């Protein structure tokens, strides 16, 4: 396993006040800051959190400044913390529809979940507490460090939650190389507040399909591409109120549920449901809503039929991996 050298980890911890858009996690990725001294953590390869003794005290100080921001429930990421009230039940209930719970107290026991763009682990930890084995990945190594540190104090989580600083492509590519058996793949992939920051959604969808077991679930939360999302998410949040720094979001990268659905279906997914989410800046809480005009959540399933994924692979833009499968 290798890790792409991320020489530009994000600090991007932007201004004071609450972030309006929940993409605070991805805000970091969009702001590439060079950091001259950053070397030490380029090799977070292990899937287990390192024991406390291998962590450098210098790193601790760096994590410290980040930790107080990620895990401060009333701080900059307050809205992301609040979003857990919607995301966790959404994921839990949809998974329970398929895999009936056998363990009281740990409804997701026995399931493997991949959290793409996990950031500080805000969504990874609740899923771990519900009993799932969760792997959180994020290209920003500082975030991974923070997440590992936070999870290390809880003996409950130490066994169930793991982090890795890499991208989804790398993870998926590693799997392809080693020809990982189906059992090593994931029961669910969660990409919350991620897709609005990706350049190549086709690749993303392909990789998700690759790492998922047949019948596995894909959960996405993101922002719609509408006039309203431009007005509120960009103009108000970024330019008027400066809650989110300018340039964090690129409206062009937003994707409507219809387009996302089309994309996923072309990769063989079957979209089960799409639900709008609404943030109330006054109460700081989220609620489900009928309108998907701004934020929305989507649940798709990779079909169990083994033929379908091949067909999807044929149409993927990586022909060199599947030369044998293409018709020639």
């Amino acid at each position: 396993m290798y890790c792409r050298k991320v020489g530009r980890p994000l600090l991007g911890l932007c201004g004071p006040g609450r972030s309006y858009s929940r993409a605070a996690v991805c805000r970091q990725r969009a702001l590439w800051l060079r950091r001259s001294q950053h070397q030490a953590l380029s090799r977070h390869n292990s899937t287990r959190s390192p024991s406390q003794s291998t962590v450098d005290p210098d790193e601790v100080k760096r994590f410290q400044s980040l930790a107080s921001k990620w895990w401060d429930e009333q701080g900059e990421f307050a809205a992301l913390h609040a979003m857990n009230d919607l995301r966790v039940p959404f994921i839990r209930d949809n998974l329970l529809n398929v895999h009936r719970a056998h363990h009281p107290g740990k409804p997701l026991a026995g399931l493997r979940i991949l959290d793409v763009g996990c950031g500080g682990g805000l969504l990874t930890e609740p899923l771990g507490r519900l009993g799932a084995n969760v792997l959180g990945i994020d290209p920003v190594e500082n975030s991974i460090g923070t997440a590992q540190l936070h999870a290390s104090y809880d003996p409950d989580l130490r066994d169930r939650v793991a982090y890795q600083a890499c991208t989804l492509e790398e993870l998926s590519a590693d799997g392809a190389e080693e020809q990982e058996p189906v059992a090593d793949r994931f029961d669910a992939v969660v990409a919350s507040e991620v897709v609005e920051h990706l350049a190549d959604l086709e690749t993303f969808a392909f990789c998700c399909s690759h790492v998922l077991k047949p019948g596995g679930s894909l959960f996405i939360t993101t922002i719609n591409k509408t006039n309203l999302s431009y007005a509120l998410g960009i103009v108000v949040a970024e330019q008027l109120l400066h809650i989110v720094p300018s340039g964090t979001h690129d409206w062009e990268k937003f994707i409507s549920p219809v387009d996302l659905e089309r994309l996923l279906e072309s990769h063989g997914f079957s979209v089960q449901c799409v639900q709008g989410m609404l943030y109330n800046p006054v109460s700081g809480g989220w609620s489900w809503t009928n309108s998907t005009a701004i934020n929305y959540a989507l649940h798709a399933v990779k079909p169990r039929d083994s033929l379908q994924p091949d067909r999807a692979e044929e149409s993927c833009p990586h022909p060199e991996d599947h030369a044998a499968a293409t018709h020639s």
Partner: protein
Amino acid sequence: MHKLTKAALTCHGLGRCFISEKHVSAVKIISRGLVSAEHGDVYDVIISGGGMVGSAMACSLGMEPNLAGKKILLLEAGNKKVMDRVPEAYSTRVSSISPSSATLLSGTASPLTSYQKESVWDACSDALITFDKENLQEEMAYIVENDIVVASLTKQLDSMSDNVQVEYRSKVVKYRWPRPHHMAESIPWVQVTLANGKTLQTKLLIGADGPNSMVRRELGIPTVKWNYDQSAVVAVLHLSEPTENNVAWQRFLPTGPIAMLPLSDTESSLVWSTSHQHAEELLELDEESFVDAINSAFWNNENQSELIETAGSLFRGTLSTMMPSAGSPRQLPPSVAGIGPKTRVMFPLGMGHASEYIRHRVALIGDAAHRVHPLAGQGANLGFGDVACLTQLLSQAAFNGKDLGAMQHLLEYETERQRHNLPMMVAIDLMKRLYSTNSVPVVLLRTLGLQATNMLPALKEQIIAFASK
């Protein structure tokens, strides 16, 4: 049953409380660098205080399916209360339990005596109010002995030992609170140091350690409190003849209310709140004189003035003309023949309310959060209400994968309970003040008010509903 002195009783209470007589200076272990919590001992919930409310909380959490697999610990400074069979003689400390509290306790099987009616009347007039549910079908409330409740909860806890651990004779000497934000180099959990030197960590600490709560004190939570200049004398009474003992009686004397709560057909429990001096005098009396004092308190009419009597009966006449069907037939309280041997004790009364029930990773329940006058029989109920509310919120939080010590659901608990408890406490305090005086205008006011309320079944039903919640 057991001879309890006055001093010992201040430590007795509806919840066990720790009053550390001496300060133990614990060595402060300052952890530098990364402290690993690798040595286990991180509990999900620690409940400090194993009285009625603390034990009920432990049982309630242990039986909650969403909390299966969580590590729960109950710390109790006293000894384990084991009761192989129900003792024949009734013990002194009893509580009045509403039906909803009874539901919470059901499954822990204590023998309960129920009462279906409650009659309350004024010593300074003839005004009477009777609370009863229609046709005496449903129970209004239950009288339970505190010891039996604790013993049966203990038995229940024994049966769920894989979920809930209990440690007896564990006195807490020190609490260490976590920082509000998680910072590296500090342990994010609450640390509890016991007298035997062991240090435990927990994600959520529940303080159920009684009116002199150490948890509350150590957190520095401001508490509104005052002492009533009253003490309560409790005893077990033998009635002069067996009767269908299903009515709770309470008479408001100018010195304080005297109440008789049914225990069985031949026995009742006495709770007499009066001035400290009078209470001491009552304890000194020999049995016969004490019995006489009780009977005269219930029957004596010397406090009534002519004016009040006339006004009262006039008003009553008017009301019964207007609403002839309202009001229940007047029953008479039973008279007392003797008292149970060595059951006479007294304890001081006060009011207390913590301004905050919660802090980061801490919640207060029961008397640690609120302490009331026994005149309405609500003290234990408020505590059980806290238990039910907090259990439900923690269960929901666990099902959502939340950290149990997170503020969000703790704030919900605080809001919900304060909204319920404060009006109740204010009402009880007002009642106490209203009935503590002999002055004619106040007596007239309360007399007419009580009679009017007695005639309004809808209002009485509201009052019962509120008290039964």
